């Protein structure tokens, strides 16, 4: 049997913008075979190339950012300056070639540079054009720009993290950007389904803030229906108890929870203290919640004498939910993630070997892959403009002389 091509082979995507929210959509599509072209310019490279560590060996450089490369593996990169003679026309040709355009700039910017949907659809009516930004394209605060790390506060996530009565907590990075990217990708693929039937493209307006609401849709419903305001409550759960992260040896932690009396009885057995289940303070879920502090202390005393792996394995063996609190380092040695090939190491010309995230899903017959390391700035100008767009040698050289690349 000949191997099937990747599932999205032939799908052509271009990206205008940068950072995380737009590029993460393209990365996931590229991992399943889409041809994704990341557009930058020499004057305005993707902000992630120079604004955030880590850099290989700690040395800053336009092609050394592990942050940029983490979000842009498996893609092509071109540099195209629309302000130079012939630049805008070339961008239009690229948009005519593409099936999908994703942009994540502030509202109005894409129109201003001459690459708005109305301008592009005239010559490419099948184009699927997605704009993703903080607030969406309309509404009184549409013009708000900003970072996903801060938008995650407006969207409720930071306020729901932390101790009751304590400070809200940061979530690492622009949490909500990835929420919106993973809700944006299905929109694009569904729009393709429509285009297969009708030949028509469309304009998709994604508000990252609104996407975030879907990750809190239950609490929002509870507020609308019952006036209840869910607040941050450390690691507590309204049903399960115990339900927490417990300290282990060597500054490790293990997360564990019991969802009914039977599970708690088994946890007590796993810990070598079957008498806990008989203790009036812990006999029912209600009693356990009332005495959660005392119970957490007992569980922590048991976990504190073992590694997180050993504690989790002992609890799982008794059918109790538990898992080590993996740090970033642990993610690379986790046996289950290793089995799933969650990390794909690729060699980059300047960064050398880097591990790339493979999405949390895969297909049985046409599995995806990290097909290439992240591109260095402008590395694919020749391939994209000459091979994909079919520019002649002279035409290409003239644009080069005009400073378009």
């Amino acid at each position: 049997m000949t191997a099937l091509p990747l599932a999205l082979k032939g799908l052509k995507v271009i990206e205008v913008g940068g950072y995380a929210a737009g590029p993460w959509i393209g990365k996931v599509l590229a991992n399943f075979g889409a041809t994704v072209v990341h557009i930058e310019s020499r004057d305005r490279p993707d902000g992630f190339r120079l604004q955030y560590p880590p850099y290989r060996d700690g040395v800053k450089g336009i092609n050394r950012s592990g942050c940029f490369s983490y979000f842009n593996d498996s893609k092509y990169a071109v540099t195209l300056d629309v302000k130079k003679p012939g630049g805008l026309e070339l961008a239009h040709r690229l948009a005519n070639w593409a099936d999908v355009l994703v942009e994540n700039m502030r509202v109005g910017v894409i129109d201003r540079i001459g690459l708005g949907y109305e301008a592009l659809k005239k010559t490419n009516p099948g184009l699927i054009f997605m704009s993703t930004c903080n607030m969406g394209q309309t509404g009184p605060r549409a013009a708000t720009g900003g970072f996903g790390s801060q938008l995650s506060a407006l969207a409720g996530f930071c306020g729901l993290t932390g101790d009751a009565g304590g400070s809200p907590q940061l979530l690492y990075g622009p949490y909500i950007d990835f929420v919106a990217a993973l809700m944006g990708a299905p929109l694009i693929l569904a729009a393709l389904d429509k285009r297969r039937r009708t030949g028509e493209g469309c304009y998709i307006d994604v508000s990252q803030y609104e996407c975030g609401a879907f990750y809190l849709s239950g609490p929002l419903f509870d507020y609308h229906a019952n006036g209840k305001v869910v607040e941050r409550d450390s690691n507590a759960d309204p049903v399960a108890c115990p339900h927490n992260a417990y300290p282990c040896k060597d500054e490790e932690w293990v997360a564990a929870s019991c969802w009914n009396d039977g599970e708690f009885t088994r946890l007590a057995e796993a810990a070598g203290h079957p008498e806990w289940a008989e203790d009036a303070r812990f006999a029912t879920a209600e009693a356990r919640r009332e005495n959660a502090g005392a119970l957490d202390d007992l569980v922590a005393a048991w976990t504190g004498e073992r590694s997180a792996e050993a504690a989790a394995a002992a609890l799982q063996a008794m059918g109790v939910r538990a898992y080590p609190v993996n740090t970033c380092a642990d993610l690379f040695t986790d046996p289950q993630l290793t089995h799933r090939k969650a990390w794909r190491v690729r060699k980059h010309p300047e960064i050398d070997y880097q591990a790339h995230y493979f999405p949390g899903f895969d297909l049985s017959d046409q599995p995806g892959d990290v097909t290439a390391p992240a591109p260095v700035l402008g590395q694919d100008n020749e391939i994209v403009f000459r091979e994909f767009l079919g520019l002649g040698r002279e035409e290409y050289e003239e644009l080069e002389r005009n400073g378009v690349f």
Partner: protein
Amino acid sequence: MLLEPLRVLDCTGQLGWLAGRLLADLGADVIKIEPPGADLSAPDWRANNVNKRLLALDLEGEAGRSAFLRLAKEADILLETAQPGTELAAFFDPEKLRAANPRLIHVSVTPFGRTGPRAEWKASDIELMAAGGAMSLAGEPDGPPLRVTAPQSNPWAASQAAVGALVALTARAATGRGQHVDVSAQGAVIASIAHAPASWDLIGVNPLRAGAFMTGRSVHGAVYRVFWPCKDGHVNFIIYGGVAGRRTNEGLVAWMKDAGAELGMLADIDWATFDPTQATQDEVDAMESPIAAFFLTVPKAEFLRQAFEREMLGYPVNNVADIANDPQLEARGFWADLPAPGGGSERHCGGFAVVDGERLKLSWPVPAPGQHSREVLAEFGFGAEEIAALIESRAVVAR
């Protein structure tokens, strides 16, 4: 509608609910299958299962199972969350189901994936947020790792399941064949932690929880405050550098002046040349002290208004009530008011995007128990007598 009316059988528990909801918003005909007598009143259930039809079908018994296999023969997509190693997971056998329906796209959403050394480990939200690395990065440095109080691993897993289902649908348009999509919630959660793993991978620095402060920005090791108590809660504000930082810092100082607030050392800073990477902790503390005093007088809504008008970076720390009452969402027609059981209406998140100027439309309110059982079975070719027999045997409950 973006999707043709694909037939989706949604047998998921909470780990996969949102996947069906997203497909439904995109235009698929999603049939939620629940056991007869299931409690459908929980806010999480209602919010994630709106816009689906409901079939009350017992998948534990023989009659219900053989009915399900007939449905699966006619379906485009199956979504399920059976725990690996259980008898139900064996029933949802990808090979067997696809042999009966080669066009079927079968999506399994499980804590750790369908195969592997820990595939059969059990997990709820807190274990998945731990396993995917998210908890190690949230919380105070001297406190425990934290999860977000409202479960997040469910939507992380389910939205990746929706992507996987539609990647397989795109492939099916070319090959004519469905395939199995295996979703690991643990793997899905890793998407939430941005590029943090690259820090360990490339420079050997293992990022850990930093609490309410921003670290790693000053060469002197100074930390910058991120969350500030305000009059009625907290705001997220950071003294940044760069162009946007300059505009933000200048905007704040102008606002404080307008409000007659004490400026302290802020009055003397030239924000055009200010470089946050060069500040010592004493300097940061001296800058932050008048800001902290000022923010204590400012309500969240006022912060949001001023930050928008003055083009400052920063947002209030909203709770669900703030989000629910945000005029921005109202203006964009985000909320969908749908008929509620017993009359009146209930408010849901509306369609999750605006396409060609129109918000994706919800076709169905939250279904009542057994509401669509008869019509769904009839549409899948069950005769009146067969339906009656299923109801008689209690494999199906219908209204």
